[in-house]
């Protein structure tokens, strides 16, 4: 796959990459070339991922961790090897990652386990529980997935929810961080990279503030793990959550990484088969992590598919992926800024920012922008992007968002810019 390495400056050889993604060869509406700029919502899948899932079903499918027969062994091997691959991808040990159905479940797992700690029997368990007056801190730029589970945890435990605000440029406002993350703060949950603004948050500063008061740190890495090298062993956070479908993997799989001592202390969330140690009619004891948190028949084929996605990304190299997207973002910010009446919501330079670019077009509602773009084959996302409170903070209802991945190139950005200009013409705002 060396043919896909950066060939012209920091850009990847996108033509070669595109060829691995069958869907990118299709057309939209009346024979328009598909220009997919919605990878922030979900990514497309290369053939190697589809083949990996299919081979699992056609050759090795059986109940994981339950069958003593050869098929069962092969399925278990495939599943646990996938765990190894995915763990290595983020610099983790296999025993410290838990498979869920998506990042949303991964974050809910943490919130519910903490909530269950209230009923815990061991001191280790109880020490995780929240009391009325305890504080959970989030930020104003969170995706609903990293906001509502904490609202609900606060409701169940009587803890209070506080948050860090956002500046006009779309950065976290850390002026009062010491006040927001106060002595009573037990959990700080924030996103590594905003799915709306593109902003990459200063993990170190926030972790420092959290550590100063002994709070746990939950990092929503949905928009970082797919786009840059993330090494959990260096981040010094306690939990990291991300989804497979945003990083070339299948739908139906998410990952929670947790600090080992915490996973070991945490009570289970979902309960049922495969997560037990012993079971009596009236009580049960539970297996060690990660099994403790993987109740029921696991997302086996999906793990195998996600491991293939990690392999695909690793071969290209996450640093190359990031460099490519960075150049593309720079190019896009320039192109978009040249459009009169266009306002970028989020940082307008490529510094500490990823390739999700939200914007408003004066006089045209985001829905209408999206529609005109779609008619030209340009697929972008419009709406509140599951970050409604962030929209409110900016006093707006919706943005149009273009987001990039390794299979996008400057010609895709050119098409975006042109189509926006077309929309302005159509709605007579220019």
């Amino acid at each position, binding site marked *: 796959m060396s043919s896909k390495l950066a060939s012209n400056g920091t850009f990847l050889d996108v033509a070669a990459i595109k060829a691995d993604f069958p869907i990118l060869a299709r057309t939209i509406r009346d024979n328009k070339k598909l220009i997919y700029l919605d990878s922030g919502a979900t990514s497309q899948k290369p053939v190697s991922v589809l083949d990996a899932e299919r081979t699992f079903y056609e050759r090795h499918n059986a109940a994981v961790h339950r069958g003593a027969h050869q098929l069962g062994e092969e399925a278990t091997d495939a599943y646990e090897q996938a765990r190894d691959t995915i763990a290595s991808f983020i610099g983790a040990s296999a025993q410290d990652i838990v498979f869920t159905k998506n990042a949303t479940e991964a974050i809910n797992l943490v919130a519910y386990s903490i909530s269950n700690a209230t009923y815990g029997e061991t001191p280790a368990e109880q020490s995780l529980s929240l009391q009325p007056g305890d504080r959970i801190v989030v930020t104003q730029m969170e995706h609903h997935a990293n906001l509502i589970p904490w609202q609900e945890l606060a409701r169940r435990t009587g803890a209070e929810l506080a948050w860090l605000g956002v500046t006009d440029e779309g950065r976290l406002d850390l002026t009062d961080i010491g006040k927001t993350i106060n002595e009573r703060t037990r959990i700080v949950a924030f996103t590594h990279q905003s799915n709306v603004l593109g902003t990459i948050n200063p993990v170190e500063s926030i972790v420092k503030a959290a550590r100063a008061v002994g709070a746990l740190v939950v990092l929503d890495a949905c928009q970082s793990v797919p786009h840059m090298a993330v090494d959990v062993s260096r981040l010094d956070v306690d939990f990291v959550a991300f989804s497979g479908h945003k990083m070339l993997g299948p739908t139906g799989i998410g990952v929670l990484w947790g600090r080992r001592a915490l996973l070991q202390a945490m009570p289970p969330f979902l309960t049922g088969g495969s997560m037990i140690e012993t079971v009596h009619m009236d009580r049960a004891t539970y297996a060690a992590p990660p099994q403790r948190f993987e109740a029921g028949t696991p997302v086996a084929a999906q793990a195998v598919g996600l491991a293939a996605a990690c392999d695909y990304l690793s071969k290209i190299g996450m640093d190359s992926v990031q460099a490519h997207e960075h150049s593309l973002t720079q190019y896009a910010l320039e192109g978009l800024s040249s459009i009169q009446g266009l306002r970028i919501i989020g940082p307008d330079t490529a510094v500490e920012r990823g390739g999700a670019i939200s914007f408003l077009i004066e006089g045209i*509602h*985001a*829905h*209408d922008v999206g*529609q005109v773009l779609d008619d030209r084959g340009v697929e972008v996302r*419009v*709406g*509140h992007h599951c970050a*409604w409170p962030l*929209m409110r903070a900016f006093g707006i*209802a*919706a943005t149009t968002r273009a987001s990039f991945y390794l299979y996008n190139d400057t010609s895709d950005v050119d098409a975006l810019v042109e189509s926006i200009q077309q929309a302005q013409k*159509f*709605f007579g705002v220019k």
Partner: protein
Amino acid sequence: MYQEIILDHYRHPIGRITLEDFDSEVHHVNPTCGDEITLRVKIDDGVVSAIGHQGQGCSISQASASVMTELLEGQPLQRALEIEAEFLTLMQSKGEGKPNEDLLEDAVAFSGVSKYPARVKCALLAWMAFKDAALQAVAQTVEEQ
């Protein structure tokens, strides 16, 4: 999709006012995009005497509210709800519907929207709000009697 009628109504919306004299008010939101409408309605002797709407939304949702106001104001409630039902059917037809022009008048311009499932909710926002408000107004009258 963007029929000239739609764009006209979008640029010069009818009923984009705050009714002072009204029987009921509703606030509806489209959760997928955050578009909102606040709609007030006045019903006199079983006739839709006034509709006023405020809010934010795309051309389709704004134009739809405007067309609806023009169509329904002055209609007996019964007939207004018939028109609403016909519009709903049209919107759910996935581009296959044969609109009843007698009933829908300008609203037939929205036929094309029914081919775009994600936009159907935009076109329906005002209509759902109206139906809700009208039923509340009626329920209230019944209660007062």
